[in-house]
Structures are given as C-alpha cells and as structure tokens.
C-alpha cells in the first residue's frame, strides 16, 4: 500500500513538474496564433464541411467566401476581396460577375476555378435560403450561374429583385469541386432549371434538390482541402489545429505558422483564457466590468471597440392591455432611464440608445442625419409619463398606478435566464418603474429557445428583443415589421396574419398613421439607395411615435487582442473588426511581434 502510494505521489509530481517545465496555458510556441471561434463551439465529431453548421471549418482560416463584408453602418454591399479578386454588378444587381484570384489554389495544389464556384452555388441551392432559394418567386434568388472562363463566373438574379443579391452572392463559401462535386447528381442543373418553373414537374425537381440537403450537410471529407491561408491539421474536443497553407495565393502576408482555435463551454471559459493571456484575439464576448478589469491587467491584453449593428429593445405584445395603448408605451419610455439601464446591464458592450428609431445609433447618423433630433428623445420625464398614463385612462391610487378600472397593473418583463445582461437590464427597468409607482417584476425563462417559443406564442406582455440588425435596411426593420408583427414574406408575396397567429406576437396594427409599415419594410428590398433613405426616415418616425418597442441600448463590438506575440491589430472602429482574424491576416494586418 505504502509502495503504491509512493509511486502515485512520484507520478503526480513528475506530471506536475513536466507540465510546469513545458508551461501551461500560454501559446508560447513561436508562430502559433491562438483564438476562439465566436460562431460555434468545437465538436470534434462534426465533419470538415462548411455546409454543416457545426462543421470543423473555420471561416477566414480554412473556409473562404468569395468576398468579406465590410462593417459599413449603412451599405451592405461593401466588401474586401476573398476568393474573388474583383466583381462587377449592374445598377439593379440583376447580374453579378465575379473574377477569381488568378493565383488561388487549393491546399492540395489544384487551382481554384469557376467550376468550384458553380459547384459551391449548386450545393448552396440544396440548403435553400437567401440568394439560393429554389423558389423562383423568392426575393433575391439567383436564376442562372454561368462559367464565363476558368476565372470568371456570372450569376443572374431572378425576376423578384433584391438589393441584397450582391451581398448574398459574394458571401458564398467556396468548396473544391473535386472533393464536394460528387454530391450533386449529373443532371442537377437541369433539375434546377426545371424547379424554377411551375407545375408538378417543377415541384418534383424542387423536392429532389432540397432532398439533397441532408446528404450535403452530412458529407465528411477525409481531410481538409482549403483555399484559405490555413488548413485543418487535426481537431479534438478541446482545440483545433490549423497549419499554414503553402498554396495560399497571398501566403507572404500570413504571419502565424499555425492557428489554435480553443473550445469553450461558456463565456466564463473565454474570460479565463483572456485573463491567462492565452488568446491572441477573441471576438465579441459579453464581459462584466470586474472581469474586464482583470482581463486588462494581463500583460499585452488590449480592448478594441467597433460598430456592432445590433440593439436590444423592450418589445410589447400590443394585443394585451394596457400595452395596446400608445400612451402607456410612451409613459414607460419616459420613465426608463436608458443610461442607467446600460450602466447596469452592459457598461462595456453597449451605449444607451439616443431614442427609439429601430436603427443602431451609428447607422442612424447616416440614415437619418439631423432629422433624428426632430424625433422624440424620450428623456426621463416622470411628469410627461404621468400625463401619458392619465391620457391612457390609468389611475394613480395609494401611490400606485392601476388599470383604468382600478384593478392592479403589474408590468411583467420577460427575459431568458441565460442572458445575464438582459436580466440585469430588466431588473434595472423594473426597479425604476417601481420607484415611479408602477408595480413591475422580472420573469425569466429557463433558456433562450423556450423564451423565443413562449414569446412567439404571445404568452408574454413584454419581452426583451434583438433589433436593428444591419446593415441592410430590410433586415433592420423586418425585426419590428416582419414575421413577429404579422407580416410574412412567402415566395415573394407579403401577407399579413392576425395578431396571436403564426408567430405574430407583437400584434401591432396593420397601419400606423395611414402607412402600412410591413409593406414599406418589404419595399426596402428592391428600393434604390435614395428610396431606401426616404423609407427608413418614414419607418424611423413611425417607430418613434408608436413605440412598438422601446430601444434600450445599442451594442458595441468589444473585442480583445494581445500584443505579446503578434501586433498590427485593426484599430478601434475599423470596418474589419467583425471579420475573423484569419481575414485580418489575409489583408496583411497581423505581424509577429518584432517583425514590423
């Protein structure tokens, strides 16, 4: 027994000593870049396949788009080159011509050609959505793909035009045809043409194309074949290792020899990596102030901030009294001090919304200009709030506001328990409302999926809601005047479902001041930039005056970099900040420390 104990003790000491000698927790090896993938956690069992949402490919490193979207607050069609060296489009985006990088090669040495792009588009059709919806009536769906020459591809838009077509085409992830091509049947393009018609044959062809979706998602290539700066070497449940792709067309710009992508089970793990100085960069991660201070204390750590086209709002179910009354919604807006809410909920990752427009403040500057000052700012004003409540018929009795019939009024604010900043925001709001004589409480849902389900089912009076999802203005306003408020866009046709049905939980009226905001939002899809500006102005005014939501705070993209091993990071407010660090490298931004 004693001997066994002695052996065990020696083994533990040897392990600890060995570890201590080799160093734990740092990416001490020269040329190794360590980061995390903000979009997904690593699943070592998933295939090396970008069509699989959990796939072990990493955008910007070994998975390449035709181009990379710039983080422009208003123009969704600004891009940096990716596999596409350049592109042209007609003014109405009916045709996009893409010119590939002439020296692009796959990691197995084969050239990247137009056929790879065409195959990738074919595979994207099996997944459906955006530019590659099989339904010909879908807005912004591609109608034809033509290989012009080995390095040029032309993609034509269908009859129902959308001004996001270029963006969606350029966002196509390109895979090697010699690896993925066998997934498409020989008559795929004939079937696609057939599917874009009508009648039983078209329906059958549609079914045969979308029926390929699972086969495409499940496809597991034996090894990674990448056109990006890196190629996946191996992956385990804790990390993925990518090594430099010697065939990458701009490999001279790529400083790291290897990239390690660490897995995480939650934000706390990312904080620990940052505090330990392990990460060279990390995408947006919600961080409380105390943790942020600790992260900043680590040698080399720096915070970089930029525009994030997302805002959080308090959204009303307007089928429920008293929230069907605009005066009540306005009263709540006058009572909520958004700066205090932001200070409590997201001091580093948010800025208090200037007012409610439906648009992030940064984008609003360009869309609305000075006209934003003409909108109601809803600055905290208890007197105005009382006026509004009285106008709604609410009564003030024994220090509490009640319903017009004298029954108690309890504001129930719902949030998912897993969103710590939303929970903090909701608590701050209810605290403020209670201080002003409105009985208010926070109710949490077990998880986000349940929250969304109950929200859509109309079970909540008020819930927190993500909005302002730019830069495309249609995306911005469809969060307020889209499916959640009864306007559904199916096969190019806009329909309105009644409140309480098919996910219409906001339950707002069909027209506001004589304008149909859902129809106007839909027009944003096909409008010219000048028309878009006019429509956005109208929608911002309607939103400001009718308050289907109260905009609370606009998110700030708070990222982390560490300049101990690498340098040349994008500055604050750079338009590449929301792109993966692999793209920063492609753009020549990151250099090893001491080599600049």
């Amino acid at each position: 027994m004693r001997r066994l104990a002695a052996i065990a003790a020696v083994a533990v000491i040897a392990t600890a000593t060995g570890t201590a000698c080799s160093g734990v927790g740092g990416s001490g090896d020269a040329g190794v870049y360590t980061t995390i993938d903000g979009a997904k956690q690593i699943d070592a069992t998933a295939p090396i396949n970008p069509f699989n949402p959990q796939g072990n490919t990493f955008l910007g490193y070994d998975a390449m788009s035709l181009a990379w979207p710039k983080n422009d607050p208003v123009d969704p069609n600004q891009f940096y080159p990716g596999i596409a060296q350049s592109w042209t489009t007609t003014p109405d985006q009916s045709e996009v011509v893409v010119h590939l990088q002439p020296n692009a090669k796959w990691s197995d040495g084969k050239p990247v050609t137009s056929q790879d792009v065409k195959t990738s588009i074919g595979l994207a059709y099996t997944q459906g959505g955006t530019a590659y919806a099989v339904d010909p009536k879908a807005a912004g769906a591609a109608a034809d793909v033509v290989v012009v020459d080995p390095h040029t591809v032309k993609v034509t838009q269908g009859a129902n035009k959308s001004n996001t077509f270029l963006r969606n085409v350029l966002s196509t992830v390109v895979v090697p045809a010699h690896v993925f091509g066998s997934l498409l049947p020989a008559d795929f393009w004939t079937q696609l043409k057939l599917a874009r018609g009508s009648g039983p044959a078209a329906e059958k062809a549609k079914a045969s194309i979308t029926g390929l979706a699972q086969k495409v998602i499940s496809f597991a290539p034996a090894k990674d074949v990448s056109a990006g700066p890196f190629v996946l070497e191996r992956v385990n449940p804790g990390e993925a290792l990518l090594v430099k792709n010697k065939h990458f067309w701009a490999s001279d710009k790529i400083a790291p020899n290897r990239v390690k992508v660490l897995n995480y089970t939650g934000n706390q793990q990312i904080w620990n990596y940052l505090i330990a100085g392990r990460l060279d960069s990390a995408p947006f991660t919600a961080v409380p102030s105390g943790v942020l201070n600790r992260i900043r204390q680590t040698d080399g750590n720096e915070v970089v901030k930029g525009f994030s086209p997302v805002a959080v709002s308090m959204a009303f179910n307007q089928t429920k009294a008293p929230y069907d009354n605009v005066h009540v919604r306005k009263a709540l807006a006058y009572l909520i001090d958004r700066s205090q809410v932001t200070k409590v909920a997201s001091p580093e990752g948010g800025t208090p919304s200037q007012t409610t427009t439906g648009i992030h403040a940064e984008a609003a500057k360009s869309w609305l200009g000075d006209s934003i000052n003409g909108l109601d700012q809803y600055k905290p004003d208890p007197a105005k709030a009382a006026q509004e409540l009285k106008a709604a018929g609410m009564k003030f009795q024994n220090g509490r506001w009640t319903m017009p019939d004298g029954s108690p009024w309890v504001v129930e604010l719902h949030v998912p328990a897993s969103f710590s900043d939303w929970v903090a925001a909701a608590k701050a709001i209810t605290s403020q409302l209670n201080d002003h004589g409105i009985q208010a409480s926070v109710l949490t849902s077990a998880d986000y999926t349940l929250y969304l389900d109950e929200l859509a089912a109309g079970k909540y009076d008020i819930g927190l809601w993500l909005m302002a999802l730019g830069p495309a203005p249609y995306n911005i306003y469809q969060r307020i005047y889209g499916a959640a408020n009864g306007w559904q866009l199916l096969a190019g046709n806009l329909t309105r479902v009644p409140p309480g049905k098919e996910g219409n939980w906001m339950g707002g009226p069909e027209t506001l001041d004589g304008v149909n905001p859902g129809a106007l939002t839909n027009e944003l899809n096909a409008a010219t930039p000048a028309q878009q500006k006019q429509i956005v102005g109208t929608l911002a005014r309607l939103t400001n005056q009718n308050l289907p939501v109260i905009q609370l705070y606009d998110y700030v993209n708070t990222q982390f970099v560490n300049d101990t091993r690498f340098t040349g990071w994008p500055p604050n407010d750079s338009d590449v900040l929301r792109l993966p660090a692999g793209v920063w490298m492609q753009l020549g931004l990151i250099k090893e420390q001491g080599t600049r």
Partner: protein
Amino acid sequence: MKTVVRRLSGHLLRGLAMIWVVTTLSFVIIRNIPGDPVRGQYEKLIEQGMSPDQAERSTAALYGFLPTGSLWDQYTDYLNGLLHGNLGQSLSTPGTGVATLIGSAAKWTILPVLGGTLLSFLLGVTLGVYAAIKRSGKLGDALAISGSLLHGIPQYVIGLLVVAVFSTLWPILPAGGPVDIDFAPGFNGPYIASLIQHATLPVLTYALASYGGWILAMKSSVATVLGDDFIMAAELRGMSRGILFRYIARNAILPLFTILALSLGLLFGGAIFIESIFNYPGLGLLLVNSIGARDYALMGGTFLVLTVAIVVANIAADLLYAVIDPRVRKGAEA
C-alpha cells in the same frame, strides 16, 4: 447455479421492462418540451453577431433533420430504430449519428468520473475506517470534519477553487480541454502524458467532491460494526490489528458497495459542472447542450444510455452483493 440463473433472468426481465418504461416516458417528455430548435439556433446566431442572411443560410436546411409525423408515428419509428441499434441523427451536430456523439463523449466522461469515483471511494473508505476507530481522537475528528466540509461544498465551487489554485495562482496544470492538440493522438508518451495532465484537475475535483460522502458513510457504518459482538470476540481473542481492520472493513463496506455500484451507473450521466468548468466534453455536457438545442434524438439517446447503465449497475450490484455477503447468498438459496 440454477438459483443464480433464475435471479439473473428475473433481473434482466425487470431491467428490460424498466428500460422500456423510462424510454417511453422520456420520449413523450422530450417531444413535448416547448421550443423550436431551428428558430432557437437562428436567433442564437444573430445574437452572436451573424447577419440575418447568414443565419438563415446556416439554419434553413436544419428543418430536414426534425422528426415529422404524429407523435405515435415518431414513437414507433424511434422504437424500431432502437431495436435495430439506431439511436437516430443529431440536430445540433447535423448529419452525425447520436451513437457516434455518445460514444465520443463517453470516453471523456469515463476517465475523470471513473477515476474520481474510484479515488474518492478508496480514500473515503480507508480514511472512514480510521475516522471511526479513532473517533474520540484528534485524527478522527479531523477526518470527520474534512469529510463534512467537502461534502457540504458544491462540486462547482471545488472545481473553481482547484482551477484558481492550480491553473491561475500556481499554473502547473491546464484548466481546460481534454488533451493538447500539439500531440498526435495514439499510444505515445507525449499524448498520454497530456491526457493525464488534463485529467488531473477534473479527477481531483470529482474525488474531493465525493470523498466527503464516502468517509462519512464509512465512518458511520464502521461505528455500527464496532459495536457488534464478533468484533468484541475478535478483540478478546487477541487478533492482530491488521486482521481486525479487515474484519471491520469487510462488514462495514457492504452498504457502501451498493452506493458505489449505483455511482458507477450514474457515471454515464457525466458530471455536468466539472465537465463545464474544465471544458471536458463528456456525457453531462452533451446532455445539457442537447437540451438547450432541443436535440430530441440526442436527448433521448443520452437518457437511454444513462437508464441502461443504472439498470445494469443495479443488477450487477444485486448479484455481486450476493457474492460478497454470504448472508444474502444463503438467504436466497433458502
């Protein structure tokens, strides 16, 4: 021999019935959990900063992985699949079989949880005997207090403390992940050393978190045995301390043996907090993630594995109990 076969057959039949009942109940409960997994995934991607177009592209095809048809049809399909050894396809890792995911996660659970359970059991049982024998001395008090303290501290607190001490203040062991990616997987020294390094803190946490329960249970059991006549008789006969220790331990360990067998069955449920803290991709984490993603097939598969493991552990405990305790064996034969 006939008795053993009869007992085993009875256990197996009851076990199969239990597995069917639990599978059916869990199927009905799982399919009725509210939440649209694809909408949840879409909104989650948006929340992570993905554009609505990209999120739509990433999730559109997931609808093809959702079960269709009436609940009864889904149930019969599910049972038919189970009878053919098919646990279904995962939604959260689309295209990957549930059996593959469970198999992959199981290995990362077995190492820390089994290691931790056995380590804590050995430590707790051994020290529990000393704590009972020396219960009026300082050593006995100290051991009992250590057991009570550790038993009272939640697993996740111990985990965080261990990380703080061994990975932050004195960074000698890795805080997360199952193995270092630098080493090629296989039966080679650096890879195995890395596995051990990464498993040390999870095993230590699990051992510390469970040790208190074992030591307290063993102390109490030994204290009861110490009052038995056969111990007094052995002492009066002047038996050596070693033999006396064995007498006490063998009799006192019997109730703990059942708990150990059940703990080994529960091992397949993973250790959610430990796996989460140490980023150890085991069954507990798999189950939690599958619930969050409303991955019906994966939830069902994980529950099934847990149920089978507990049923098997129960049967094994019952049969082995008869082997190690002659009173039970003779009672069954009578």
